[in-house]
């Protein structure tokens, strides 16, 4: 029995390393970087700023770039955003 191919979840994301950057630089760099992507492309951001969870949620809501997923591992947050 063959399984259906997974939906388009394996699209390569551009990565932005914002670890160690202080507020508001993770969001500023994200705003810069996402402009270089085409609509629908993914951006993965790594951040350690303690305000990042609230900031990325707010930025996504306000700008319309979808926050596809987020996680935390050993103090490093990962956010995956899809350019609108």
């Amino acid at each position, binding site marked *: 029995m063959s399984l259906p191919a997974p939906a388009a979840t394996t699209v390569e994301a551009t990565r932005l390393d914002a670890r160690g950057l202080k507020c*508001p630089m993770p969001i500023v760099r*994200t*705003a*810069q970087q996402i402009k270089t992507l085409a609509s629908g492309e993914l951006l993965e951001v790594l951040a350690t700023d303690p305000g990042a969870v609230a900031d990325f949620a*707010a*930025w996504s809501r306000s700008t319309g770039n979808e926050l596809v997923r987020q996680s935390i591992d050993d103090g490093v947050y990962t956010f995956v955003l899809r350019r609108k």
Partner: protein
Amino acid sequence: MSEEPVNLVLFSGTDDRLTAAAVLAAGASALGRPVHVFLQYWALDAFRADRITSPHPLAPEAGAEGASAVASLREAGQQHWSETLRQAKEIGEVDVQACSLSMDLLDLEQSDLDPLVDGVEGVAAFYVNAGNGQVIFI
């Protein structure tokens, strides 16, 4: 962009207040909001081209402990407020204007100011450009 602008009036020429202002400007710009910055008095003095990145004093409430905290953040790699403002301009619509009265007070020409400053205007132009957006005095 139909968002109302965020309007920052900078009065203080202290590095901590200018840093806080640059953070607010960059955050608003990253959200796609237009930002107007109006430079008065000692904030305008801090934008002199020849010494924008020289150390300026801190707000009086910083005290010795605050000064040392600010210094450690700088050593940990926090960029200068002028650089934060420059990046805020790169990612969005951030307009920096010098108050004409303060230009007279400090005997400045626009050529004395850092290129971050886009022009000189009076308070009437500031309010008209501010529209119905918030005005924040720092």
